[in-house]
């Protein structure tokens, strides 16, 4: 038995719910989790090998097979494509002499396509051995590969530091913040721990009342009233409760949490303390996507600082009997883990497959205990609500959507980055604010949201009208809408957990039909087909990912029908465009028959 694996499993208390951490540590040590490691983990945790392997195989950043010495995870989001991803990918393949999806023969380089890594404002970006390399050019590719071949480490290749905390000793990252607009709530001035003075004089119930009074709704996108969620949790009988913060931020085009976690993580942790106090939580867990691993030391240091100041641990913030701590739980590259029940599963060391609801997490959540899952931005806002009161918060925004919202704006704009706005801004104002370049369409809320065109630019960003989790991808006139939709659809294919059949299969079928249209082989029936089957996704899948996976196609058909129609063959109702000559090529070769002229 290898003592290395044993000591890692020991480190996490022989606890099967910490399987994610165990994999991460073993991967760090040897690059992958092999067959023997799986056997050993299973043995030591006293669970079946299949249980170990099914979790391992679920996550993009884990591997059973050895990967390269340098593993290049190149983002393939649509904005990365706008910014020249294809050229960069070609250069990487040429310089390493290997294809994406494989490891070079000498074992030096592993190349992998990767869904959005939260760097849409600085594409094309890649993660190489945990280090983020933004704004990659073909020149930079050749330089990097040459240096890696010469034995340089990834940290040696960090040749600039982004602004703000990115250049602190604990981060030292090339990532830039691009915080383009500070607003009155999240990014307003704040001294760490300020809200605790007030918190000490409030009962948990009063905290919940204040949050309810503010009318704040969850910032992840679904918009459930936060105060109500907390109240439901406290009503659950079980006294062992948990607060989970969702920092998975996997929606392509969103990167606001990255900036919060870089610049004001103390605000987030303060919010996690407040929420933990309000719901009577035993522990808070920050579920952080592994893409943001470069922030780990920075965040852990701040948590330590909180503990030193008495803001975590026993009698937190001087409140008698309030014992509470926060730990960071990393994901490993799975968009679906941003869905709250999948996130909980992942925290428990399982595959990130969404659960059936009800029961909702507020009654049966993490470890089957009552659990609140809140977005990073929500928890940050709560701090200011406690400090300044719900009434103050309500004075901003619209009637039904109070406060401010962070927008992650990227794509064809002069100033991509994070903007804190008051709810109620129109899309047109937003385009102007960010310096949109000849906009044709906006993907509101990322791929799972809505693709809108000029005719909807006067709609306002708020729950009454156009709700959003904040990802705004601007698509210029020169872009092909169909290619954009295809990119989004392929994202859903990649990220489906595979649990519901329509999400697993229909996404592929829809993509193929779309490809047929893009290839100029589409007919009128294909458009009907996309619309008809796209609609079925809403009712035929369990979670938000599956239900919204056809949204790009559906809202594309609704708002850009002319782009589809321009591509299809006129005057023909139905044609599968089956190509017999092409279909028999392979077997003709195999048997040596070449009759087809």
């Amino acid at each position: 038995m290898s003592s290395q694996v044993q000591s890692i499993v020991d480190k996490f208390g022989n606890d099967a719910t910490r399987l994610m951490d165990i994999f991460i540590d073993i991967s760090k040590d040897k690059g992958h989790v092999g067959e023997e490691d799986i056997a050993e983990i299973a043995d030591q945790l006293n669970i079946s090998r299949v249980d170990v392997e099914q979790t391992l195989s679920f996550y993009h950043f884990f591997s059973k097979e050895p990967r390269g010495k340098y593993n290049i995870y190149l983002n393939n989001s649509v904005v990365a494509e706008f910014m020249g991803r294809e050229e960069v990918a070609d250069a990487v393949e040429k310089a390493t002499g290997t294809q994406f999806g494989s490891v070079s023969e000498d074992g030096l380089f592993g190349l992998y396509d990767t869904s959005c890594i939260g760097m849409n404002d600085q594409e094309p970006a890649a993660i190489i051995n945990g280090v983020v390399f933004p704004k990659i050019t073909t020149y930079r590719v050749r330089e990097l590969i040459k240096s890696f071949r010469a034995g340089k480490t990834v940290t040696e290749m960090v040749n600039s530091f982004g602004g703000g905390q990115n250049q602190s000793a604990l981060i030292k990252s090339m990532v830039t913040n691009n915080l383009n607009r500070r607003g009155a709530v999240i990014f307003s001035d704040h001294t760490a721990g300020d809200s605790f003075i007030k918190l000490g004089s409030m009962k948990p119930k009063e905290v919940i009342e204040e949050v309810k009074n503010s009318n704040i709704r969850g910032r992840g996108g679904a918009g459930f009233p936060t105060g109500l969620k907390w109240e439901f949790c406290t009503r659950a009988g079980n006294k062992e409760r948990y607060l989970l913060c969702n920092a998975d931020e996997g929606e392509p085009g969103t990167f606001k949490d990255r900036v919060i976690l870089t610049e004001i993580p103390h605000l987030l942790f303060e919010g996690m303390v407040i929420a933990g106090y309000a719901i009577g939580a035993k522990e808070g867990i920050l579920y952080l996507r592994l893409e943001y691993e470069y922030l780990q030391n920075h965040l852990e240091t701040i948590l330590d600082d909180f503990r030193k100041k008495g803001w975590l641990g026993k009698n937190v913030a001087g409140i008698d009997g309030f014992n509470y701590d926060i730990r960071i739980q990393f994901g490993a590259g799975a968009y679906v883990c941003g869905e709250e029940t999948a996130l909980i599963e992942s925290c428990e060391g399982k595959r990130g497959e969404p659960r059936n609801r009800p029961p909702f997490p507020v009654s049966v959540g993490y470890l089957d205990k009552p659990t609140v899952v809140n977005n990073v931005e929500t928890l940050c806002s709560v701090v200011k609500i406690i400090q300044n009161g719900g009434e103050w918060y309500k004075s901003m925004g619209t009637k039904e959507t109070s406060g401010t919202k962070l927008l992650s704006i990227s794509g064809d704009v002069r100033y991509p980055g994070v903007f804190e706005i008051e709810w109620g801004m129109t899309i047109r104002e937003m385009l102007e604010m960010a310096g949109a370049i000849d906009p044709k369409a906006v993907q509101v809320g990322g791929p799972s949201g809505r693709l809108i065109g000029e005719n909807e630019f006067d709609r306002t960003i708020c729950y009454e009208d156009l709700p959003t989790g904040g990802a705004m991808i601007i698509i210029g006139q020169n872009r092909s809408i169909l290619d954009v939709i295809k990119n989004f659809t392929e994202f859903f294919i990649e990220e489906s957990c595979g649990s519901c059949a329509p999400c697993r299969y229909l996404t592929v079928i829809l993509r193929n039909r779309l490809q047929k249209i893009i290839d100029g082989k589409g007919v009128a029936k294909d458009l009907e087909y996309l619309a008809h089957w796209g609609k079925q996704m809403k009712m035929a899948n369990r979670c938000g990912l599956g239900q919204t996976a056809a949204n790009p196609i559906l809202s594309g058909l609704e708002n850009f029908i002319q782009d589809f129609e321009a591509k299809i063959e006129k005057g023909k109702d139905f044609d599968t465009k089956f190509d017999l000559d092409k279909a028999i090529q392979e077997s003709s070769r195999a048997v040596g028959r070449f009759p087809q002229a």
Partner: protein
Amino acid sequence: MSKPIVATTSLAGCFGCHMSLLDIDDRILELVELVDFNKSPIDDIKEFTQMCDIGLIEGGCCNSENIHVLKDFRKNCKILVSLGECAIMGGLPAMRNNIPIKECLEEAYLNGPSTKDANPEGILPNDEELPIILDKVYPCHEIVKIDYYLPGCPPTADLIWNALVALVTGDEMKLPYEVIKFD
């Protein structure tokens, strides 16, 4: 009024769907009152002799002949029905879709336990009279337009009967849970 005309065929199928059609038992007497058959293995008519109303297709398309037959059916039938799993999804034959063709052929004719000593010259069948297999097994609707789908492996006799009666009479089809449940 003349009776509606039905044609049937089995492409890359196992004839199980046709067996299921025969499984309508004594209703077969009603069926011959209701419809006439044209091209079909049931009456052994090899080529279409007139335009048909309903074509029942069993099996997906695994070779060039399947494609010709299916297209022929589309040309000669007003309504085409994919009958059973293989016609609808490719079915069992489609299990080869993830294996390169060369590997499939070699396993079947060179390396398989029943052929490895029987084919010393290592011949892969390649007579020009033989249809040539396709790169993968296709469901029928990826080749031609299919109007209706009857699921099952095979579809139950009742399902086929109900569908045929509904098509012929124009009445709404009876679809009780029992005839389409598979669990």
